């Protein structure tokens, strides 16, 4: 604790809030690196969230009392990923093969995904007679881990070894992406496709294939962010479908991609920062009031800071004309081989 500021719990809450943002940001970074600006993140998260909970629910119903929490959780993760990937695939089909406008297609995907997610969630609720919820054994898989000894270390244990498995999966995804983008041939080719598809095409890289795979896998990772929200969100509602549960976090992820300058490593810091800001109001006001009684900062001030920060980053990078920190060059425009 620093004065009256409960840092340990604040950090814990920041990580919890940051994880779905990190998944979605990583997915969108991968997509944008291939030159596709997919504004459908929010939609793909909805699809992942609903598909994940549906997978768990149907497995548990089918398996009856013999249902295993671990299988149920893994199915939720897998099906949630596939649902998000399906969204990314539709996006690729429309923008890469059928050459539709990227902005409008992304928005259509958002509209579709919000509709599909809420519809699946609500139908499950009707089917289950009230609201859908998964079994306690599945929920326990999505609750915090406990490693003997490590988790018991004071402060350190709480700060690093007490989250649910998806938090670690998100960090692992980030590390994988860092390696993929910076250390492998595939990553180099992918960046080439995103920066200058004509050149990539000329040296024999299959631009279409790269764009499809990047957007689909990216969509799948966004879907995992949705699974996290529907299955692991801390509070009384984990494993229960809540309408409109994504609540704009997909759009925040689109902002985070800019803030992170299209780098997975910065995405970790950015997500933690944005997640921290959304959790800060719980902890900052009590601390402030220890020396300024009655002082209170409206929650909206905390909420708006990430967006202002993102705009400042946008302006700053455009003034500096920084190639390092700006969007992949071909992002937002489709590649027409004939118009090369």
């Amino acid at each position, binding site marked *: 604790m620093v004065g009256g500021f409960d840092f340990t719990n604040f950090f814990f809450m920041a990580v919890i809030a940051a994880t779905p943002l990190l998944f979605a940001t990583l997915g969108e970074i991968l997509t944008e690196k291939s030159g596709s*600006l997919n*504004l459908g993140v929010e*939609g793909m998260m909805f699809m992942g969230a609903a598909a994940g909970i549906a997978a768990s629910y149907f497995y548990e119903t089918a398996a009856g009392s013999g249902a295993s929490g671990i299988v149920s959780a893994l199915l939720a993760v897998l099906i949630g990923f596939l649902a998000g990937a399906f969204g990314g695939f*539709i996006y690729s*089909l*429309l923008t890469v*093969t*059928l*050459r*539709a*406008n990227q*902005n*409008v*297609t992304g*928005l*259509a*995907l*958002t*509209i*579709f*995904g*919000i*509709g*599909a*997610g*809420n*519809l699946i969630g*609500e*139908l499950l609720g*009707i089917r289950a007679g009230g609201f859908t919820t998964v079994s306690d054994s599945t929920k326990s898989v999505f609750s915090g881990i406990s490693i003997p000894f490590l988790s018991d270390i004071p402060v350190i244990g709480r700060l690093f070894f007490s989250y649910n498995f998806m938090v670690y999966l998100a960090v692992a995804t980030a590390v994988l992406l860092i390696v993929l983008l910076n250390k492998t041939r595939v990553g180099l080719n992918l960046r080439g496709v995103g920066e200058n598809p004509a050149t990539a095409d000329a040296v024999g890289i299959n631009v279409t294939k790269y764009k499809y795979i990047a957007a689909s896998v990216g969509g799948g990772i966004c879907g995992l962010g949705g699974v996290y929200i529907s299955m692991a969100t801390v509070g009384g509602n984990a494993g229960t479908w809540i*309408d409109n549960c994504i609540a*704009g976090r997909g*759009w*925040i992820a*689109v*902002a985070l991609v*800019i803030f992170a300058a299209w780098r997975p490593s910065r995405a970790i810091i950015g997500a933690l920062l944005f997640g921290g800001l959304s959790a800060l109001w719980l902890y900052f006001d009590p601390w402030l009031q220890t020396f300024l009684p009655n002082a209170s900062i*409206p*929650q*909206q*001030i905390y*909420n*708006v800071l990430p*967006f*202002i920060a*993102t*705009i400042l980053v*946008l*302006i700053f990078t*455009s*003034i500096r004309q920084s190639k390092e920190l700006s*969007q992949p060059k071909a992002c*937002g425009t489709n590649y027409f081989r*004939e118009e090369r």
Partner: protein
Amino acid sequence: MEDEKVTEKENVTIAGHDEYKEHHEPLVRMVKRDTVSRERAIAVRAAAIVSALVVGGILILFMGHNPIFVYGDMVNGSLGSALVLRETARMAIPLLITGMGIALAFKMRFWNIGAEGQIIAGATAASYFALFHHQNMPSPVLLMVMFAAAVVAGGIWGMIPAVFKAKWNTNETLFTLMLNYIALEGIRYLQYGPWRDPGMMGFPVISMFNISARLPRVFGVHVGWIIALVLVALVYIYMKKSKQGYEITVVGESIQTARYAGINVKLVFLRTMFISGAIAGITGFVTVAGANFTISEGVTGGVGFTAITVAWLAKLNPAAMIAISVFLAILQKGSGTIQTIYNIPESAAQLLIGLILFFMLGCEFFLNFKLVFKNSKKEVTE
């Protein structure tokens, strides 16, 4: 490994010319169309909508209902009586107005996805006068002042990203998107803080407007529909007949050409985005003064995003936007009806709108390109 295989095959094919051709000519290739006949364009788009409805119908079938009845009740529930017809018209108004604002920006290839924020800015400015200055002026003057405030506030909110785009080429797609959230947090702050109605026993709501701040009705629908139709005419004339409209088109086609022709590109950016944002601001005005009689964080109802699809599906044509916005309003209104009759969640409408958008976006390809199959007789050899 792979490279070796290719060379091997090529060696073989050089021997026999036919084989060479077979190997290198793709099964299908695309050729850009020069022109598309009006009939064909209509037919392809109609086919796209029908396909989307069929896919939606299959989903309805899976839910255990007869799609034909469900669709029938959707139409009935949105057009079947004067009462619901008015409701549908009321839903189409904000889509239509906002769509026009977006179309002006898109014509310039300025990807304004910030209409949500611009609507909020306009609505907030109008509400300020409705809430705090209604006692100082007669109703017509008050409404005019609210209108003007909405135009200015929406316009300024729209112009901010254009300033940075003009000066430093800052990415406008992401900038306008961020401004949506800043505007949203702004109205939330007002709703939960200074503008909160203390008489509402702890509920965070803003009080209802005084009667003098409410728009009159014509044929049972607030005059927003007249404003919308006048705007359709004005925007049409502006885009097609005015010098400024022509400048927008040129800048949209090529900034280089525009500069070469002596057009002040920066001025066109600023002016057009002011108008675009101002029109979205008008949406905010008619929503608070005509429909809601108050303002809340949900004032836009997602119109700013849905209107983008209105503008795009109408190919930025103001007249076509009337049809598209009414069509989307039918889906939205009809979804409420099928919820009560069939217990199909209202979100089904959103899914259906998404499906229709997918098919409409996809079908454009078949208008712009034709597919040439291998061995087709149109093939030109060598």
